[in-house]
């Protein structure tokens, strides 16, 4: 563990230190909230990237894990008055269970069937939520969820620690033999099977890890935004995870984080012209996919290649 910490790149340490210092420079709750939202989106994007970017399982229902965790903590907090710290393990457990239920049939499917099945689950769950309005609150969802902590500064540090830990865990995993297996599965499933690897089991595990991390994002989201609604597990939310990874560059952890920065900024800027928000958002995606198909981070890396950034290192080589 100590060796791993010693191997952390200096740019990482530098960027982390800058972020740690932000609340010392500004206490403006608006800026801090944007940063917290960026961390939440980044965690969500990273969780999708593990499946979509590294395994090639393009999930169009990833918001389900995010939403289930958000609803769990909201229900426990609002209906039972439980504090966030107690809700956290239960929220993650629910996200894990739901990811297991989704993963079971999905890991044996390929291509558009995966997209269809992952898309169907949140639709089913949303309808179940609508069937019990007294409990899940219909369109308005559950308002009045308690704050994550006593101040926005603490929220910021909690979210910062969460993303740092998740990025570190994923980075370790991707750079290990597990990462090699994931890339092998994405490249050609027959090869790892022929090597004696149970790829269905690997996919199931990754689905659960991914669902768990999406659950962490959902938990933080519920306590930062202080309301959960069916939209949190809807298609648009799932598409945002896909978009963040595609914009940044799927299959690279820093690409997912980079995509989250772009989406958070674009979302905030477009708030000024709310009526055109969705239109401009999707037009932007279209332009990026057409003109930067490898993700913006890849092109920036290319431009900055003289400082030695290597996209292959990012994808992990044990």
């Amino acid at each position, binding site marked *: 563990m100590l060796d791993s910490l010693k191997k952390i790149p200096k740019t990482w340490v530098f960027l982390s230190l800058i972020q740690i210092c932000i609340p010392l420079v500004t206490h403006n709750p608006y800026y801090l909230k944007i940063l917290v939202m960026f961390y939440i989106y980044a965690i969500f994007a990273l969780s999708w990237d593990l499946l979509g970017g590294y395994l090639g399982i393009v999930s169009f229902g990833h918001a389900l894990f995010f939403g289930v965790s958000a609803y769990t903590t909201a229900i426990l907090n609002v209906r039972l008055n439980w504090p966030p710290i107690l809700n956290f393990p239960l929220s993650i457990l629910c996200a894990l269970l739901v990811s297991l239920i989704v993963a079971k049939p999905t890991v044996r499917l390929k291509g558009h069937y995966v997209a269809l099945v992952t898309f169907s689950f949140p639709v089913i769950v949303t309808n179940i939520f609508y069937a019990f309005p007294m409990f899940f609150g219909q369109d308005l969802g559950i308002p009045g969820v308690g704050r994550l902590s006593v101040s926005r500064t603490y929220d910021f540090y909690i979210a910062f620690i969460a993303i740092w830990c998740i990025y570190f865990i994923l980075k370790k995993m991707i750079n290990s*033999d597990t990462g*090699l*297996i994931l*890339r*092998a599965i*994405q*490249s*050609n499933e*027959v*090869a*790892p*099977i*022929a*090597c*004696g*690897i*149970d*790829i269905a089991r690997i996919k199931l595990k990754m689905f659960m890890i991914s669902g768990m991390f999406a659950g962490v994002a959902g938990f933080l989201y519920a306590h930062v935004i202080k309301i959960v609604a069916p939209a949190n597990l809807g298609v648009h939310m799932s598409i945002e995870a896909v978009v963040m990874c595609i914009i940044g560059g799927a299959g690279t952890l820093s690409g997912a984080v980079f995509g989250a920065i772009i989406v958070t900024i674009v979302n905030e800027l477009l708030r000024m012209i709310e009526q055109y928000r969705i239109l401009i958002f999707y037009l932007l995606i279209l332009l990026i996919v057409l003109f930067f198909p490898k993700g913006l981070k890849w092109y920036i890396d290319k431009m900055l290649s003289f400082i030695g950034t290597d996209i292959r290192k990012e994808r992990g*080589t*044990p």
Partner: protein
Amino acid sequence: MKGNNTEKVTLTVQELTKHFAGLVAIKDINLEIEKGSITGIIGPNGSGKTTLFNVITGYLKATEGNIFFEGENLTGMKPHDIVNMGIARTFQVPQCCKALTIRENIRLASLGRYPGEDIEEKTKQFAKIAKLGQFYNIMTQNVTIGHLKKIEIAMVIAMNPRLILLDEPFSGLTDLECEELSLIVKGLHEKATLIVIDHKLKHLMPIVEKVFVLNEGRLFFEGSPDEVSSNPEVQKIYIGGEIKK
């Protein structure tokens, strides 16, 4: 029921049949592969050779019949479980991961098989045996078909199997490449039992001890390479003329 004579026999195939809807791909195949032998399987296109491999290795489910490996019934087992029992194979169209380097492909096959040993050193060693040492860090998508065949063989070596099934290892290769590969294949034989499917009899016959001939999904003939080569019926169904050794 267990396969007979497990001390001498590595693989026993009993009454193996595979149907694809109404099409009979293989029918009532019976064969026994002796431990430590190199066996050839030949036959015209569509005679069921690759289907036989696919059923033995679990990629296809047998319609009827049983397969025993060292006395254990493999029928219905999943492909990765069969590999972990000690059977490795190559494919007609090489199945390497093109997004990985040669080193990573070989490492993938070595995973979990050499606890306590330096897996990187092992990987290098396997690449050298398959004459891939100088291409070690090259991306697999940039190599020739000859190299792809060698990568698959290096991966098979890395799995340390007791039975190896090679599906058309010589196809698509030049004579020179075939000769080089023949030497590598002979090297494999030192550690494992081999079954080789190929159409290039010029390269196959000198390395095998026994040959099974399949025709229209059935076992048509079995014998030594000399017996097979000189059998007029085999010559007729196989190439419509004399087989050149």
